[in-house]
């Protein structure tokens, strides 16, 4: 039995590797995607284009605006002299924010009153708008502290000392790149398996294979293993790139990570084979892959947190293997989580993998009789 499975597996791997086009699809895209997406996918803002509308001639406004100008997050694109110039700047997306200082700003401040800094932000992307406002508020808070000290004004009754664990500088690449490890592994292992049976079925070679002494279980295992092996190799490669190229700190150990990878590949290969055994034509298999992959990625917590979803959608995500593996990869990378902390993330993937493989095997056998 083992010999037959190995023979079938070798045949499958040769079928994948021998065709130059499918070989290309396997090797090129994951590397390119890792490089491009690794650099592209960040929520951190740099060089936010902004404009200044300063009606005040005093020192205070100059000091405050100099702090903005000196920040690497901001990039001054225009100085505005009239109210009417603000709208076109924002509308045409030339500036993401316009900062307005009224004519009496310095005077008010010197009298011990509160001055106001008006900020108009482009809300077309409300997340970016919020980040821009946070940056500005941080700069203003720094200014306030300096001003209060310099002018002997009383301090606040309590201040906040905020620290961020695991990612002290809040680099969102540390969040996204471990996520890409999981994401690209899913794409590769799913693509490898989901179209494999449908292709043979359309070519008629699947019937031939069913006529050989191979049992359905052996066919199933033989079809699953290549996706498993190639998926594991690619995942390892991407992991190494994440550590060495992107310098994401790897604080945990390999055991909880690879146990997670094993369970994850089990479930994604299982899902792929189930899609494959359900579909008669390649077009259906492709459609099935899309229908699984797209929601699996968008509703996984890769980019937007699961906790923000409505309860009904959150229940749906329990069926998504990517959801569990994403947490495992990120926790092992940044939080150095051990198996004891993560244990309840492994078994759902094992259940999904076993269930999908059983269904796929049952569908194989059903097509036999």
């Amino acid at each position: 039995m083992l010999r037959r499975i190995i023979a079938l597996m070798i045949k499958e791997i040769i079928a994948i590797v021998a065709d130059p086009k499918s070989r290309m699809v396997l090797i090129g895209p994951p590397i390119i995607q890792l490089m491009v997406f690794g650099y592209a996918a960040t929520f951190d803002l740099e060089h936010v284009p902004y404009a200044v509308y300063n009606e005040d001639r005093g020192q205070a406004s100059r000091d405050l605006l100099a702090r903005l100008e000196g920040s690497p997050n901001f990039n001054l694109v225009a100085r505005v002299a009239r109210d009417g110039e603000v709208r076109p700047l924002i509308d045409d997306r030339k500036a993401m924010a316009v900062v307005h200082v009224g004519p009496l700003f310095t005077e008010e401040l010197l009298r011990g009153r509160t001055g106001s800094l008006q900020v108009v932000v482009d809300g077309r992307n409300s997340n970016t708008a919020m980040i821009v406002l946070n940056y500005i508020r941080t700069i203003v808070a720094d200014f306030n502290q300096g001003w209060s000290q310099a002018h002997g004004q009383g301090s606040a009754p309590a201040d906040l000392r905020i620290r961020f664990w695991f990612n002290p500088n809040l680099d969102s690449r540390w969040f996204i790149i471990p996520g890409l490890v999981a994401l690209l592994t899913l794409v590769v292992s799913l693509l490898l398996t989901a179209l494999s049976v449908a292709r043979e079925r359309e070519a008629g070679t699947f019937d031939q294979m069913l006529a050989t002494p191979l049992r359905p279980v052996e066919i199933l295992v033989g079809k699953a293993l290549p996706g498993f092996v190639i998926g594991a190799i690619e995942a390892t490669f991407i992991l190494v790139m994440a550590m060495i190229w992107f310098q994401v700190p790897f604080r945990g150990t390999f055991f909880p990570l690879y146990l997670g990878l094993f369970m994850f590949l089990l479930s994604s290969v299982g899902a792929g084979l189930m899609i494959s055994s359900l579909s008669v034509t390649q077009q259906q298999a492709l459609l099935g892959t899309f229908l699984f992959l797209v929601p699996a990625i968008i509703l996984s917590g890769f980019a937007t947190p699961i906790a923000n979803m409505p309860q009904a959608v959150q229940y749906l995500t329990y069926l998504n293997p990517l959801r569990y593996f994403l947490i495992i990869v990120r926790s092992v990378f940044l939080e150095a989580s051990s198996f004891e902390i993560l244990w309840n993330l492994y078994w759902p993937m094992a259940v999904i993998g076993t269930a999908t493989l059983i269904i796929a095997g049952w569908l194989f056998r059903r097509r036999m009789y």
Partner: protein
Amino acid sequence: MRTMKRAHPGHALNRMRLMGLMKKEAYQIVRDPSSIAIAFVLPVILLILFGYGVSLDAEHVPVAIVVEHPGSETASFVAGFRESRYFRPVIMRTIQAAENALMHRDVDGIVWLRGNFARDMRAPGPASIGVIVNGVNANQARIIEGYVTGVWSKWQERIAPGQGRPLKVPVTVEQRIWFNPEMRSRNFLVPGLIAIIMTLIGALLTAMVVAREWERGTMEALMVTPVRTQEILLGKIIPYFVLGMGGMALSVGMAVWVFDVPFRGSYLVLFATAGLFLLTSLAMGLFISVVAKNQFVAGQIAIIATFLPAFILSGFLFDIGSMPKAVQLITHIIAARYFVSILQTLFLAGDVWAVVAWNSLALGIMCIFFLLLVRKRMKKRLE
């Protein structure tokens, strides 16, 4: 090709032949209902799922509040968290318990009021409140930081009069967020999702179609008929274009009526640009299938080259201006980038010509480029 041209002189396009081809394609679409399902059912399901599922508005964030010595000062501070809809506070007595909860991801942050909090508050200097936020999800952490700061400054304003030392803040920030004052992330995510879903639909509809014909040999059979290359192309594009526009209309309708996204532009501009975008993604799908020539590879390329780039590089979620220059250049070949910008502007800001015109121009160039490429590749194959 050349001999074929000589044998059939006349107009570049023959309406009868084109109608015949379109009819054939329409029959194929009707007989295999999967294309209709792709065009109409898929956008509705995906938009419902993602429109509700994709959100950056964090609410009820679980935080541990460590109160080492309960008193009136700490109570007033904790009340601020209890009243906020952004937090779901859990009161703990020791920092160890809170850190343990953070490690197990039971809470996303800790607010730590030390035992000497009340005494420090009466002392001249400020008392310090320790805040620890799980920074793994940096964006979420930043949002939580903003919420905590919000609760804290409201609390200060409230207690300042009773403290006998009026709160003096030199400068306050008065924010005005245009187009989306309540900062609903759905307002920009749903229009972006339409662009992504339509990218998928366009590629799915066409990527497999031509590859299938090559694989079955029917394309060669079609080539020996008097039908011209551009007629084959148009015969394929027009029926799927009509289908795709139907799906687009459904998506826009849902965005406005189901998700309550304000639509401030004009529908005429919307459908003109949507048509341009759909044409571009159909042309891209055709290009993929002409290059791949087999469904297996066409399918793989369609998945790799359409969905993920549209998701990550279109500016739908991640700000393009903050990407490195080299990556910014790459985003220019992503059709969804232009359509996301157009849609977000049309929905939230209105007909801003500077945005609409440039992005439409880019879409138009991409569309023509891909159509020419497809034509060239199809010709080569015959020679």
